[in-house]
Every structure is written in structure tokens, then in C-alpha cells.
């Protein structure tokens, strides 16, 4: 006798969420947006735009983990809470690696400076 027929659901259809940080939402033109959507947006994927980095107390720094997704970054100890982003594991295999301490404060300071410079340049070029 052959084995009994069986069926199992492999993957819950939880929504995969891709958060794209500002100003990407405004930046990417229609074609690129369509390409991204085509690439990562089957019925179980949604794209939204994430909020800028914020400083938050440690208690709020719990990454929210949805079953098929992994947060791109997890909490860091110095009260800075990087935004938690999600992506399908297949395209974003983040990252059970031994990552050395990332100098988040330095990076954020640099980003602030760079962003200010871009804004200044925008004014100069009339945008």
C-alpha cells in the first residue's frame, strides 16, 4: 500500500513588508517603482515608506518579527533605536553574523550632516 496522501502549507501568507526610507518614496521615478514592485511585490508583499530614525528608550527597541521576515537591524544598546525594517528572507538574508559594534552615533551624525548638505545643494540648484 502506498502512503496516505498528505498536504501541508509551507509558508504562511503573512504580509511581507518592505519599508523604504524617505525620501526614496519621492525619489524613485515611476519606472523604477514599477520595477521594484514587480520584483518584490507579489500578492503577499506590500511596500510602505518608513519613518526616519528616532531615539527611543530601550524598552521600545524590541524588533518586531513577523514569521517569514527578519528585521534588518535589531536593538543596539546605547538607546539609539534604528528603524526596524522587514524584507523577505529570500532577498534580504539579514544577517545572523558576528557584526562588530557599529558606530551608530557616528553614522547618524554623518547622515545628518550629509542630509543638510543635500538640502543646501537643492536650494542652490533651485529645487
Amino acid at each position, binding site marked *: 500500500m502506498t502512503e496516505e*496522501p*498528505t498536504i501541508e502549507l509551507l509558508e504562511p501568507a503573512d504580509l511581507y513588508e518592505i519599508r523604504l526610507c524617505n525620501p526614496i518614496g519621492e525619489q524613485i521615478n515611476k519606472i523604477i517603482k514599477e520595477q521594484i514592485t514587480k520584483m*518584490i511585490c507579489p500578492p503577499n508583499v506590500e511596500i510602505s515608506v518608513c519613518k526616519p530614525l528616532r531615539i527611543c528608550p530601550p524598552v521600545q527597541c524590541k524588533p518586531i518579527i513577523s514569521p517569514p521576515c527578519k528585521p*534588518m537591524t535589531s536593538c543596539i544598546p546605547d538607546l539609539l533605536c534604528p528603524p526596524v525594517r522587514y524584507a523577505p*528572507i529570500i532577498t534580504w538574508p539579514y544577517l545572523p553574523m558576528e557584526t562588530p559594534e557599529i558606530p551608530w552615533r557616528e553614522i547618524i551624525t554623518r547622515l545628518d550632516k550629509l542630509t543638510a548638505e543635500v538640502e543646501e545643494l537643492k536650494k542652490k*540648484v533651485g529645487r
Partner: protein
Amino acid sequence: MLSLNNHYFFLPENKALVKGSKYSIIIDFESGRTYRVNRSASRIIELGEQGFKVEEAVEKLGSELKDSSIISFIEKLVEQGLLLLSSNPKPQGSEKPSELKLDFIWIEVTPNCNLQCIHCYTEARVNKDEQLETLSKEEIEKVIGEAAELGCRKIQFTGGEPTLRSDLKSLIEYAKVKGFELIEIFTNGTLLTEPMIKFLAEQKVNVAMSIYSYRAKTHDAITKVPGSFEKTMNSLKLLLAYGVPTRCEIVAMRQNEKELEATSYFLYQLGVYTRPPDPIRPSGRGRNMENWPTEYGQAFLQTKPSFIISRENYEKNKRWNSCWFGKAAVTSSGNVIPCVFARDQVVGNVKHQSLAEIILGEKMLRLWGLNRDQIEVCRDCEYRYVCEDCRPWAYGLTGNLYAKSPRCTYNPYTGEWEKKENFS
């Protein structure tokens, strides 16, 4: 029960069965769900798909399975919406084969580069004394025109470093005239001037750049040119200021793998689109893989069935290669290859043949048609039409064009995902 017996049973139009060696899967294109069924279940569904009624399926499988098992399994799938019962046979589907056309073309406008990246897949470099063969402006325009006639509307000018060509603007304008809707230049950004960036903004040209780290020291160590990070970042600021759609590629390698997370974050926050870091390919200066990112490479292994389900990709993958189908790259010497990483898969040369002759020729169609049914092991895998394939990666590492992707840990003969530790 009696009423069920004389009915046909089959998968709804938005679902498909893919047979594997041990297991098969039912793909639900509507919900994105995937179901795994064993061999018995697969046989039942196949009979329904072949046009047998329930009672006929029961008769055919009677020596192997109990009637009640077959019936209750069909009922279960009907309840779940995975099978339909009908007094009529399954309507013949209108399967739409993917259109055979050139969708995207890379043109490498120069073999030269002012950087000397340690992993460069084209081995581009500074060539002061040596005159490397390069396509002329007229030859490139001919390729652009022929690609447009083939229906291609997406083009990337790359190199080497494309901004080393003094006629790049003119080539971009020519592509515009020929109706290309997506024009992108892939540049290291170090030579972009403000007038050039203004031009790119006016022409609505997209820009792609490689940034290897948020740290100048790491980036410059990879490009082997001190100060290159600063120049690239200055260009990036101007690109953002002018509103040029810009994306950055992060190539993962031993030298930057500890900084990938922070670099991705850095770029996202700056407002550029970036995909997950892509490991170096075994091509050009990366061919010996001495800079392979060991830890990230492990993380990059596929160890579970997380696939992005879409009908369009499924239909395409059944017939064609999942990645390089519809794509072609023209190297600076005029060689045509299906992917920039597939340096040795030359299917013709635009100096001697028209692009149409090459693209529609036997060699290219054979490569475009290199689907998973031809790949060792994959041909027996139930995931073969939902999985993405990088042939340059597979054959670059194994020397075998038909080798299973080294990234995949699935064994379709056992139905098990093997442990990462078994892969190096």
C-alpha cells in the same frame, strides 16, 4: 459521495502543480501560498488534471490507496479551494508564453576605468599605454538602434567607467531618440561633474553606483584609489540634490562584510535605493574567490522555501532562464553575452553580425532557454519554477554550466534542506 464520483476535479486557474522527485507543490498565485504534497497526493491531483473523473481516479489508484483516502483527500482540497469539482472537464487554459524579446541591454562603452576594484568582473583598469579595442560611437549607435528595433526599451551604459567616454552624452541622447524609456548609467561616480549631473537630471537618466562601505577607508581599499569614496559621495550628494533617480549597489566581499548592515542603513537613510548586498561573482578579478565573504555567503544560502510567487515569473521560468532571459550585454569589444558576469558565454560580435542575428540566433536562444528543467538536480525539484537562478555564479564556481546553484541547500530527492554547515 455519489455526486462527487462522477465529477471532474482539477486545480483552479490560479493554481499550479509542480512535480518534484519526492514531493510536489501546489502554488496558489492568488494568495502567494505554497503547499507541499507527497507522492500519493500528487498522483491524485495529476489524474484530475489529466481529465479523469473522481471515480476513474479511484479505479486507477485502487490497488495502491483506499477509495476513502482518495475521496476524502479530494474533498479536503475542494474545501480549501485548491481543487474544483465540475460536471465538465477542465477548460483549456490560455497559457501565455513569455514574449520572446530583448527586454534589457547593457552596453560596456569602455574597458577602461580610473579605479582598480579588487573584484571587478570586467577587470577594467587604467590603460595609458595600451589601446584596448573599444566600440566606436557609430558602432554603439548601431547597437542602440538595433536593440530599439528589437523592442528593447531599457538600457544601461556601463564599462569600465562610462564617464571616461567623451561622447557619453551623445550616446544617451541617441538612446532617447530611439525611444528607450529606462536609461541608466552605471558609474563609480568619481568623475561626474555638475554639468553632467544636470544633464542626467534633464534627460531623466537613472544612475547606479557601487558603494562598498560607509567607511571611506574600506571603500578606498576596495577601489585601490585613495580619495575615491569622497569623490563618489560628493557626486551622490549632487545627484540627490538634482533629483536624479539613484541606486547604489553594495558588493559583498571579505573586506566589507562586517560593514554591510551599516552601509545598507547609511544608503537607505540618504535616500538611495539599494538592494541587499550582492556577493562577488567568480568573474574577472573576482574569479578566484579569494575575497569571498564567508559569513555573509553563509547567510546568503537558501535554506528554506521562501519564494516570491508570481504567475508571470512562473510562466517565464517554465520556458526560459529565470534571470538572463530577455537580457544581453555588449562588451567594449563588441562581444554579446547574456549577462555581464557571463564573460565567456559569447554568442556573437556586433562588429560582424547584426544584433538581431545574434539575439535570435541559436546560441543565444539556447542560453536564454536554459531553464531549470536542464539543470542538474534542479530538474527534479518541485521549486524549480519559482526559484531564481544565477548561472554565472553556478558555473563560475563549479565549471559546469548545468550545475545546481551552490546557494541552494535543498535536496529534492530527500525533501530536506541540508544544514548550512555542510556548505562552504
